[in-house]
């Protein structure tokens, strides 16, 4: 176990001590101790920057289950390190923020920080694991810890609903992903992503390639809230705001992005991958931004904004895959898409984290997040307002902030996809820039809405539950650091380009490096009068027009009835599966013995008859038959007649007597077939049985003495005849198929020499196969005890009555 492994599991180890620190040191906020963990990890991971910047990677293996090919292999490359720095860096800021956000007197802090540390460790494990099974393990850890964090205030009904919803959706995706991982293992024979990436050329011809691709993408799309799985994210906003900022904007929702980026070397050669990732991403971008405008809760707006921005990054990763199809180009225009994806990933983490913290401050200081009650806070909360306006402008893509740069690159990438002719979808390709542009317009509208409705406009403090004032400085530190980064990355984007973006892009598109293409990252503000610049101008102009006429067209959102929304489908589906399951069980389990017997006999008949005839197993061979004697025919007729008499008997007495007749006929058959012991036993036992039946008959209570003939039911009769027929046919064919001689010759030859007996049946019973007899005696003994107990012990019931 190396230091790198220790770094990954450090949050788990630290989590063990949190409850003790919380209980033991009540005077100090537990968050201060927690703060050390992500800070130390952040500093530790910074050390790897020069290494990955130089194109090197670090791989450390810790054996876990070597016999199954499952080892905890930590692999640090540009992509993994970028995520690790995001996780630990924003983790540090979120912990700092939460110290001021959550009161140590009122909240169950030990739970909160244990869940948060567990999440942090899980997330580090996801991004630094090379082994897919280990990655899956950490992946599910993030689902579980997210579930616990969303349900942190578990006494609220909405929290439990949101936690359950996110759990169901992300675990559904996680399990699909596990299916994809298993398929990949079947194809490649390894769980290592690096080794699988090396085989991508052969994997693509495998018939399992497309199912594996779809299953892995399902996992990524559910985790990263892509359409139509985005519905869990807005409900996850019931979590405390630091959790929303950390999990549901900067880290966990990017696990799906990470997975798509990480698996790109394996799958991206396929055109299907390109169109699925880009298509779902661009539609999610449009759908998320379109829906964000109608929300009135600040966190809900940010949730839909996150969905939309994740769609943006996803579509860029999809378009970036086109670079592999055109790797002969001198200046590969598709490479810019991947660069933009990585750049926007960083940018989104900075401004979205800051915006969530800003909303948390507003909520904390005013008591509400509803934009219909807020307004005019600018004079009271100037610092928060600054954070909000920079974050929002960056999100809207307005210069000079970093969002502008990545949005320009995004639009450029979307225009370039028109020229892609994989699958010959050229005409559909035009949808990409159009949707991207429309999505950007709505992004602009809700970003402006976020700032104006909260801080500007009419002040209506009388509606607020609290008297608003500026937040304490401790709460402002984290968002201010993030906002500072927004500005720094905006003005000096090339700070990142060689240290972080280039190694990450090389990790996503290793095939380009092999093809001799240099990843050249140079982000600049002024790139001439290009189409994307005019698109941005259009976004701003149309966005302002749309925002100022918002009340006039907002009515279109109410056109869609609630039950036709995706949430409506989800709720209905969940309720439907419950009632459906209940109805099915109720319908099948009637409570009547007869129903179950009908099932059993029907399946018996159906399966056996079907097997007999489908497999052609029915055989009718008369070669080995014994002679039929006339007296045997007479006896057979007597037996059959008495059996049938039972069915038509008018009185019970008659049926008992017929049953006795059946038994005695069988005893006679035993005599004919050379079985004296059987005949003896059968005679005695039949006599005792009939006596028992008569005893029962005699003691019947008055009510049941109504003697009546059995009513005829056609269904029962048909089923009974079919069972009889099946047994007969089976008997015919199994007799005709006798393939080898009986072992009885051994018993016949050795009965006297080995066992000193002449009666072979008795010798078999007590000597050759004596164990059967022992337990048969046990059965009789148990039956006798049971009968005694049933008759004797009835005290409990009479006491209760």
């Amino acid at each position, binding site marked *: 176990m190396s230091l790198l492994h220790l770094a990954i599991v450090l949050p788990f180890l630290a989590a063990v001590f949190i409850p003790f620190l919380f209980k033991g040191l009540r005077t100090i906020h537990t968050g201060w101790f927690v703060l050390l963990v992500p800070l130390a990890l952040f500093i530790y991971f910074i050390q790897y920057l020069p290494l990955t910047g130089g194109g090197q990677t670090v791989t450390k293996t810790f054996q876990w289950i070597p016999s199954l090919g499952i080892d905890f292999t930590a692999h640090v490359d540009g992509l993994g390190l970028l995520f690790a720095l995001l996780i630990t860096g924003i983790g540090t800021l979120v912990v700092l923020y939460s110290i001021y956000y959550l009161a140590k007197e009122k909240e169950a802090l030990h739970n909160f920080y244990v869940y948060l540390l567990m999440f942090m460790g899980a997330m580090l494990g996801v991004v630094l694991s090379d082994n897919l099974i280990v990655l899956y393990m950490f992946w599910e850890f993030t689902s579980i810890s997210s579930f616990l964090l969303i349900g942190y205030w578990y006494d609220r009904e909405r929290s439990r609903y949101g936690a359950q919803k996110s759990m169901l959706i992300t675990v559904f995706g996680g399990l699909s992903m596990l299916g994809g991982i298993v398929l990949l293992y079947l194809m490649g024979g390894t769980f290592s992503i690096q080794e699988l990436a090396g085989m991508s050329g052969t994997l693509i011809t495998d018939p399992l390639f497309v199912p594996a691709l779809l299953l892995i993408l399902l996992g990524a799309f559910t985790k990263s809230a892509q359409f139509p799985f985005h519905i869990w994210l807005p409900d996850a906003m019931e979590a405390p705001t630091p959790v929303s900022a950390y999990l549901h904007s900067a880290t966990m929702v990017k696990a799906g992005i990470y997975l798509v980026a990480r698996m790109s070397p394996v799958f991206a050669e396929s055109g299907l991958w390109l169109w699925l990732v880009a298509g779902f991403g661009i539609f999610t971008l449009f759908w998320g931004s379109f829906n964000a405008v109608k929300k009135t809760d600040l966190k809900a707006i940010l949730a839909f904004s996150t969905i939309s921005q994740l769609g943006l990054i996803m579509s860029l990763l999809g378009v970036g895959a086109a670079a592999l199809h055109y790797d002969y180009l001198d200046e590969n225009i598709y490479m810019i898409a991947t660069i933009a994806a990585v750049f926007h990933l960083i940018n989104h983490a900075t401004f979205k984290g800051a915006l969530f913290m800003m909303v948390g401050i507003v909520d904390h200081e005013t008591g509400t997040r509803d934009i219909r009650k807020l307004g005019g806070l600018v004079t009271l909360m100037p610092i928060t307002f600054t954070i909000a306006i920079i974050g929002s402008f960056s999100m809207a893509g307005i210069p000079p902030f970093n969002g502008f740069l990545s949005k320009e690159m995004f639009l450029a990438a979307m225009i370039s996809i028109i020229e892609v002719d994989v699958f010959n979808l050229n005409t559909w390709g035009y949808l990409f820039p159009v949707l991207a542009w429309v999505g950007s317009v709505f992004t602009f509208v809700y970003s402006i809405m976020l700032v104006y409705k909260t801080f500007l406009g009419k002040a209506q403090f009388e509606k607020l539950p609290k008297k608003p004032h500026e937040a304490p400085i401790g709460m402002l530190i984290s968002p201010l650091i993030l906002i500072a980064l927004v500005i720094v990355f905006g003005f000096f984007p090339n700070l990142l380009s060689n240290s972080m973006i280039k190694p990450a892009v090389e990790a996503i598109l290793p095939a380009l490096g092999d093809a001799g293409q240099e990843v050249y990252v140079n982000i600049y503000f002024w790139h001439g009068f290009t189409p994307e610049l005019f698109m941005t101008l259009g976004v701003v102009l149309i966005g302002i027009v749309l925002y100022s006429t918002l009340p006039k067209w907002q009515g279109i959102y109410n056109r869609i009835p609630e039950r036709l929304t995706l949430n409506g489908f989800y709720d209905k589906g969940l309720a439907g599966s419950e009632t459906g399951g209940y109805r099915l069980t109720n319908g099948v389990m009637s409570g009547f013995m007869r129903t179950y017997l009908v099932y059993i006999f029907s399946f018996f008949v159906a399966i056996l008859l079907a097997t007999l005839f489908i497999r052609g197993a029915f055989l009718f061979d008369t070669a080995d038959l014994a002679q039929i004697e006339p007296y045997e025919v007479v006896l057979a007729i007597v037996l059959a007649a008495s059996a049938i008499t039972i069915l038509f008997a008018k009185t019970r007495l008659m049926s008992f007597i017929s049953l006795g007749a059946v038994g005695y006929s069988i005893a006679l058959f035993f005599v004919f077939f050379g079985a004296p*012991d059987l005949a003896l036993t059968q005679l005695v036992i039949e006599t005792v049985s009939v006596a028992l039946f008569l005893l029962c008959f005699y003691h019947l209570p008055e009510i049941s003495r109504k003697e009546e003939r059995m009513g005829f039911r056609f269904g029962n009769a048909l089923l009974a005849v079919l069972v009889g027929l099946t047994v007969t046919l089976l008997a015919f064919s199994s007799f005709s198929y006798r393939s080898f001689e009986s072992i009885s010759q051994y018993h016949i030859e050795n009965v006297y020499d080995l066992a000193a007996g002449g009666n072979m049946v008795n010798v078999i019973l007590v000597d050759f196969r004596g164990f059967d007899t022992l337990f048969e005696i046990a059965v009789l003994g148990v039956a006798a005890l049971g009968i005694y107990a049933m008759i004797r012990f009835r005290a409990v019931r009479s006491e209760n009555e």
Partner: protein
Amino acid sequence: MEFLMSIIVGILFTCAVYLILSKSLIRIIIGTVLLGHGSHLLLLTMSGLKSGSAPVLMDNISEYADPLPQALVLTAIVISFGVTAFFLVLAYRAYQELGTDNMEQMRGTESHD
């Protein structure tokens, strides 16, 4: 002979299943007894019914009936007797306690539904 016995076994099974599907508990027990009879005959039939002497060692006889299925059937008879006896007393007690032998009325109480 074996085919004739197979048909007899089929008839026994038909009667048994028809009785088991009925409402009356006592008829169900009769059905299980018939089912037992059918299985015992089937066991014996399947080992072949070629005439031979009873499986008791005697001089000057080389052809015996197969002793192994006889031993199996003997065990089965005793076990099915034990189960039938238990079942009958159970039915008898059920009559005493519930006052009915109609299976459709024995569906547990409301609280156990």
